């Protein structure tokens, strides 16, 4: 093959690739719209009575960035008087999953007893990160876990756009955080039982097809329609 022809061949491939890339990016980026009919779960549907615990809502201060539908509720144990604070945060599709500002502040400023939070098996498929913050004589436990919600099928997008959305858009998330102070040695175990109760109560609210998000990177989470 003549040299000029080979140069033209390479130029044609590169030129075609440039044109194809431009068309592909325009096509897939047209799908980067927020989901038109994502049903946001209502965190306030969490029952106020969980076993021996009774809940009282508290006004949430500054809302976490990009998160909507947040809940802050204090639960009191009817027998021991122990208090547990529950935060439930819903982050819509495309937003980074975020929890409460209080948890963020605690994690940023608090002195954790371990650099890496340990894992607590809530159930067969959910794992919470548990961290103990120490401030002088006071100890406070934070349990945090989240779920990736399935995105609804949107027929206006073709398979290429759907694939792009699945790979590039973070699915909606529900993040649950439970703060429990440790006054007695038995408190952490009671807190873990309470965490299980909260998890069981949240499942019907967020839907049983929600997937615990602790096992894989949220950015690359694939959610089935």
């Amino acid at each position, binding site marked *: *093959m*003549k*040299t000029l022809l*080979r*140069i033209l*061949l*390479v*130029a044609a*491939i*590169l*030129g075609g*690739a*440039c044109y194809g*890339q431009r068309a*592909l*990016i325009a096509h*897939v980026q047209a799908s980067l719209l927020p989901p038109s009919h994502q049903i946001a779960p209502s965190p306030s549907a969490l029952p106020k009575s969980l076993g021996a615990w009774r809940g009282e809502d508290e006004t949430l201060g500054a809302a976490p960035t990009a998160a909507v539908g947040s809940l802050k509720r204090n639960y009191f144990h009817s027998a021991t008087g122990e208090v547990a604070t529950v935060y439930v945060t819903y982050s819509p599709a495309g937003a980074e999953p975020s929890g409460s500002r209080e948890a963020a502040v605690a994690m940023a400023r608090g002195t954790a007893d371990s650099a890496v939070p340990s894992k607590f098996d809530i159930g067969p498929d959910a794992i919470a990160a548990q961290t103990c913050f120490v401030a002088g004589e006071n100890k406070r436990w934070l349990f945090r876990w989240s779920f990736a919600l399935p995105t609804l099928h949107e027929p206006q997008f073709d398979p290429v756009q759907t*694939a*792009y959305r699945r*790979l*590039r858009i973070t699915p909606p998330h529900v993040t649950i955080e439970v703060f429990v102070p440790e006054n007695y040695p038995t408190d952490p175990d009671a807190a873990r039982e309470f965490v299980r109760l909260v998890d069981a109560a949240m499942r019907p609210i967020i839907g049983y097809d929600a997937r615990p998000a602790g096992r894989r990177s949220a950015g*690359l989470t694939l959610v089935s329609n």
Partner: protein
Amino acid sequence: MATATLRSDSAHSAAPPRHTGRQFAGVGVHVLAIAVLAVLVGVLYQATFVSLAQLWNTNPRYPFGFFVPVLSLAVAAATWRRRGPPLSCDVATTDVRSGLLVMFVGLLAHVGAIFIGQVPLDVASLVLVVRGALRIVGGRPTLQVYGAAALLPLYMIPVSLDSLTPVVAWLQSFTARGAAALLDLAGVPVFADGSILQLSDFTMIVTSASSGIRELEGVLAVSLAVALISGRGRRFCTVLVALSVPLAAGVNIVRLTAAGVAFEWRGRAAAEQVLISFDGWVIVAVAAVLVLVTAVLLSSLTTLIPGKRMKSQ
């Protein structure tokens, strides 16, 4: 009687060989053809370069990023000067097919990178596309001589080497001892204990971040580029690249020594100012100077041992 000749790929040879095969047209046409292809590659990877620039701007650990494309072009220019343009009239059909296949795989990787948003994959695809194009327009000989220049862009990807604990520990110790020795030479009283440098009223700790491990990848790129530009053969290239590890520490030895001298002459504030301002382009400049000085010294050393560079006929 035995006679001696210089190695054929040496920069000192009288007439540097060009790859075989009839050459294509004049220099102007070469430049035009390569420029057109380069512009097309630039347009195709425009978004990748923008992402890389953002990555380099926001990553203080890798100030060498902007320097790597320049090094790659410099290596390509030196190769052109020494071995001729990357175009040839004699290219086998199998080379064209292989080149097309490599370009296809590269473009496929580019599409994958668009979907998953991974810049490293896109850089790998850029390398594949360029190598495929080189094979099509110049055949295997062109790919062999220009291949290194086409591989250098891989250094545009910042890689964290912090987890190489034994290397980090050695670099910390080497940097502390090197800085202590230089400060001694400069007449600055210093006491070195492990990775701690104690001056009269000022303590400098060589942490893993200031050990040179974060400069290692960039220094490797600079060393490789300088070795390739020099055209002094594989042995020279291997030695210079191997010296990148102490040279990376050398960058921080210069930093700590400068801070120590500043403390001795101007006080604590000046020393802290040196430690803070010794960043970004200053690191790149110091690394480049260290590599160039080492290359010149190494080159002089190999010239002093002529037996190594000659062979009997």
